C-alpha cells in the first residue's frame, strides 16, 4: 500500500467474541471490520485489509457479501496469511524447521507458477483464508493463498520479509515500487509498533 495511491471504497463490519474494543470509555463492544481499498490508477485492483477475526458462522455471509456482486470471470485472488509453525505437520520435529517459511495453496484455475512450494499433505488451512479459497475453487476462480509459518506471536520484520517473494509475482510486481528498498521501508512501518509494545516505558 506504500507504493501507490489507494482509496477506501468500503468495509465489511461484523462483531464476534474475539473482537477487542478500542474504545475504553464505552464498555460495549465496537464493530470490527475489514476495509476495502482500490488503486486510484487502476480501480479494478482491490485490496482488502482484514484486521478482525471472522468467525466460522460469519464466513459464508462475508463471502456472499464481498464476492456476491463481483463478476467471477477473469478475477484473480491472492490471499496472504500467517500461522504459527506448531500448526505445520512434518515428519521431523517442528523445532528443527527454519522459520519463517512460505507455503502456497492454489485453485485449479490458477495457472502461474507459485512463488514457493505448495503446502504438503496432510497439512490443511482453516478460517477465512480457507473459506475464500474454497469459494474460488468451487466457482472456478483463479486464486492463490500464501501462508507464512512463523514462530512468533506478534508482528515482526523477519516474518513480514518472508512474503517478499510474493511481491515479485506476476500479479503483484506491478503494484510494488522499490522492491530492493523494501526492507528499509518495512523497518520504518514497523518502528511505530515496536515503540508501543515496549513494556519498560
Amino acid at each position, binding site marked *: 500500500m506504500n507504493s501507490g495511491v489507494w482509496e477506501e471504497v468500503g468495509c465489511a463490519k461484523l462483531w464476534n467474541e474475539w473482537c477487542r474494543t478500542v474504545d475504553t470509555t464505552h464498555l460495549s463492544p465496537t464493530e470490527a471490520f475489514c476495509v476495502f481499498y482500490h488503486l486510484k490508477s487502476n480501480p479494478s485492483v482491490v485490496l482488502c485489509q482484514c484486521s478482525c477475526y471472522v468467525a466460522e458462522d460469519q*464466513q459464508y*455471509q462475508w463471502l456472499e457479501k464481498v464476492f456476491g456482486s463481483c463478476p467471477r470471470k477473469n478475477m484473480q485472488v491472492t490471499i496472504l496469511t500467517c500461522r504459527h509453525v506448531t500448526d505445520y505437520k512434518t*515428519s521431523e520435529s517442528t523445532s528443527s524447521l527454519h522459520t519463517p517459511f512460505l507455503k502456497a495453496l492454489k*485453485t485449479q484455475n490458477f495457472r502461474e507458477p507459485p512463488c514457493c512450494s505448495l503446502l504438503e*499433505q*496432510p497439512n*490443511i*488451512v*482453516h478460517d477465512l483464508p480457507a473459506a475464500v479459497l*474454497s469459494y474460488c475453487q468451487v466457482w472456478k476462480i483463479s486464486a492463490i493463498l500464501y501462508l507464512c509459518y512463523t514462530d512468533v506471536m506478534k508482528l515482526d520484520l523477519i516474518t513480514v520479509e518472508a512474503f517478499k517473494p510474493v511481491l515479485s509475482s506476476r500479479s503483484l510486481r506491478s503494484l510494488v515500487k522499490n522492491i530492493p528498498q523494501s526492507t528499509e521501508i518495512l523497518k520504518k512501518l514497523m518502528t511505530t509498533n515496536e515503540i508501543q509494545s515496549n513494556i519498560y516505558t
Partner: protein
Amino acid sequence: MFVPCGDSVPDLAGCTLLMPAVSVGNVGQLAIDLIISTLNMCKIGYFYTDCLVPMVGNNPYATAEENSTELSINAEVYASPSKKLVALQLRSIFIKYKSKSFCEKLLSWVKRSNCAKVVVLSSSHSYHRNDLQLRSTPFRYLLTPPMQKSVQNKIQSLNWEEMEKSPCIPEIDDSEFCVRIPGGGITKKLYDEGCSKEIPMVILLKFVSEGDNIPDALGLVEYLNEWLQIIKPCCDDPSASALPWKMPSSWRLLFGSGLPPALF
C-alpha cells in the same frame, strides 16, 4: 448445494450414495477415505454449504507428484461409474445449529438425483453399550422403511444385528423406547429424516472409543463389503490376509509431527 467439477451435471440416477456421519473416532470419514482411495474414485463435484466449517488442503488421495496439487475442500463428491457408486466425503464439523439444515439440504439433493439408496457409515460411543451389546458383535445396522422390503432377506442371511432401541430417558423407569445413537453426530437426524421423507437409507455403525480408529474404519468397510461386495478378495484362498484396502497418503502424521530429539 451440489456444484459439479466439470460443465455438466453428472447423472447419479440408480447409484448408491455412500456417506459418513461425523461421529466418535471419525470412523465413518476414515471408512469413506478407504473406499475412495481403494477404488481410485474420481472427484465429480463439491457439496458447497454454509453448514460445515471451511477447510482446504491439497489432494488427500495423491499417489504421485502429478496428482498431489489438486485442491480439496470440506465436502466433496466422488464417483466410480462402473460400480454405480458415489461417495460424499465430509472433512469438517458442523457449524453450531446448522446440522439439521444440512440434513434437509442433503436429502433434498439425494431425492432430486434419484439415487437408488443411501448408505451412512457411522459410529457410536462404546461405553454406552448395555450388557447384551457388550457381549455381541460391535456392528449394527438400521433400515428406513423403503429399504426394509428390498434388503431384509440379504441382511438376515448375513446374520447382522439391528441397532436396539433403548429408553428415550434412561432416568425414567417407564420411559418409551427409541433408537438412540450417542456419539453418532447427525446419524439419528439423517435416519429420522430418511424415514419421514421415505428415502431408501441404510445406517451401518460400529461401537468405538476415541483413539487410533484406523482398525475400526477397516472393520466398518469390511462389514459394508459383506453386503455390497465393493471389492472382491484377490484370490480364492480363504486363509489369505484381509482385502487390499488402500490407505490414502493423507493419513500420514495422524498424531502430529515428529518428536524433538532433545525430548529423549
